[in-house]
């Protein structure tokens, strides 16, 4: 059964100067154990999609349309107490900055044990044993001793491992990793990504990996969803999207990845900037920057068409069949 199904999700922010949609009409599906990468530039709505799935949109924002189903059950309209029970237990979250994600005044063990005991009815000793086991699984050396130390006694990479343990310790079926490596040293990034991939394989947890790093997506994800200006513009298996991107924005992203080897004089980049949520054009949001735009692009918004596995929102692919 499909693990997660998001349909036509819109998150709106109600401000004094009117309503602004942070994400619009986002649909995606995720199978158990699958790793879905979500890429896009800052403000494209990647993190907002993750926050909506886990029910952590903060006012004045809220889900204004669409639905989210987890294992067939609707979770976007649950009362706060019910969604709280899902968080951590069925959907875990990994945040960007391990230095600020852990409470400085509680030991790593206290935070793990509390999380475990919130969701699994275990006696204290059993929860502690489980916490030690999780620290070992995420690669903390001497977990029996480290469990009683405080976050500041860990390095950044080690803290992100603790964050991963906290996200997975109640064995959720889905984990949303929001830029899990952005705040880390490059040398540590690869280790954390490898760990995440290994744990996903071991536990069968599905992962939504939010990042702006195409390299991370390429080596980790099964499928990738590209977001632009609050919408998904292309979805597909990673290898296919990387090899043959169908949306001009995705092509632009690929072209801007620096490569090892003979370097071009100037790294290709996409001209212009992504429109702000309150100033999106009526047609395709990418049209003003698109090298291939033609007649319908500026007036008519292209729909995401194709199968849940491979689809794209671009007039080039619909109006002019390749």
């Amino acid at each position, binding site marked *: 059964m499909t693990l997660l199904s998001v349909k036509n999700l819109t998150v709106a922010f109600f401000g004094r100067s009117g309503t602004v949609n942070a994400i619009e009409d986002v649909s995606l599906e995720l199978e158990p154990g699958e790793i879905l990468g979500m890429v896009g530039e800052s403000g494209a709505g990647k993190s907002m999609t993750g926050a909506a799935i886990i029910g952590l949109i903060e006012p004045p924002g809220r889900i204004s349309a669409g639905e989210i189903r987890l294992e067939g059950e609707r979770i976007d309209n649950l009362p706060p107490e019910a969604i709280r029970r899902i968080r951590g237990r069925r959907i875990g979250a990994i*945040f960007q900055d391990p230095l600020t*994600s852990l*409470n400085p005044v509680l030991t790593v063990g206290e935070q793990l044990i509390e999380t475990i005991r919130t969701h699994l009815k275990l006696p204290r000793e059993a929860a502690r044993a489980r916490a030690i086991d999780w620290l070992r699984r995420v690669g903390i050396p001497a977990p029996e001793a480290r469990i009683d130390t405080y976050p500041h006694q860990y390095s950044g990479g080690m803290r992100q491992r603790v964050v991963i343990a906290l996200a997975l310790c109640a064995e959720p079926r889905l984990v949303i990793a929001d830029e899990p490596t952005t705040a880390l040293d490059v040398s540590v990034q690869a280790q954390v990504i490898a760990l995440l991939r290994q744990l996903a394989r071991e536990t069968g947890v599905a992962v939504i990996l939010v990042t702006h790093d195409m390299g991370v997506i390429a080596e980790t994800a099964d499928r990738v969803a590209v977001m632009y200006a609050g919408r998904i513009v292309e979805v597909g298996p990673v290898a296919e999207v990387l090899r043959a991107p169908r949306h001009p924005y995705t092509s632009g992203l690929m072209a801007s990845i620096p490569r090892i080897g003979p370097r071009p004089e100037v790294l290709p980049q996409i001209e212009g900037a992504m429109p702000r949520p309150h100033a999106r054009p009526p047609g395709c949001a990418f049209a003003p920057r698109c090298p291939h735009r033609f007649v319908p692009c500026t007036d008519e918004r292209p729909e995401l068409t194709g199968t849940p596995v491979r689809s794209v929102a671009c007039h080039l692919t619909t109006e002019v069949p390749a």
Partner: protein
Amino acid sequence: MLGFLVRRVIQSVFVMLAVALIAFLMFRFMGDPVNSMVAENASTEERAAVRERLGLDQPLWLQYGRFVARAAQGDFGLSWRNARPVSTLLAERFPATAELVLVAAVLSLVLGIPLGILTALRPRSFPAQSLQLISLIGISLPTFVTGILLILVFSVWLGWLPSFGRGDVVDIGWWSTGFFTLAGLKALILPSIMLCLFQLTLIMRLVRAEMLEVLRTDYIKFARARGLSNRSIHFRHALKNTLIPVITIFGLQLGGLIAFAIVTETVFQWPGMGALFIQAVSFGDVPVMAAYLVLVSLIFVIINTTVDLLYAVLDPRLRVDGARGAH
């Protein structure tokens, strides 16, 4: 931790020596004490004899040394006003002030922290909004005005509570306490409310501001993302982080309470050290003033050291002695 403690004690000694110097110099600002001790027509020889007897002919640093040595043993000489040992006078008055300050401090914490949490967690609710408004009044009204208003309402109009004095006290050794008699307790109510009001509003507003700040942090968001209960997030994860700055301010303000007790004691004719000090000022009773200054400074120093130690209890990052992890 031990090294930290030793360092703090050494610092404290220097602070106290500096305070003692100021207290000591106070005697010299009051003119030549010999003049007030000998007859007006005393000869120069007689004056010299008195000066020698009192050690006033010795170099200044030697006199200062003797003052410090005596003060360290609690000996501040005799009061110029009623010729009783200053230490005895202070010891008589200390319990009254201590009890007043204690009750006010406890009140400000016991009420201030929960009210601060309430206003932070439900910022838009009616009680929170009205508390914010009332606290604004509390923080801006001079304390003697609130004291006089309290007397007007509860003593004059309603006649419920006494307007002055400590009521009945019970002596336990040298300590006289008002905690064990009804009259003593009733007498404590108005002065302690007046004294605590400013602290109470300060702590409430501080807890509120800190709590709002902490609730925005990543670790609280991550705690929510792990599905922890609101109770645990608010009272375990957030409160402990909130209390660190609150402890600092409270510690500093505790000294302020003792200082402000002077005003409260004057308004309520409370027989404490503050009232003693005010009397001493009006009579130019330098030994009492000097002793009060040294004693209050000592209390400040002790409180601040305790606060620094409490930090380490609350914030593990400050426990410098522990083995550091790999970085």
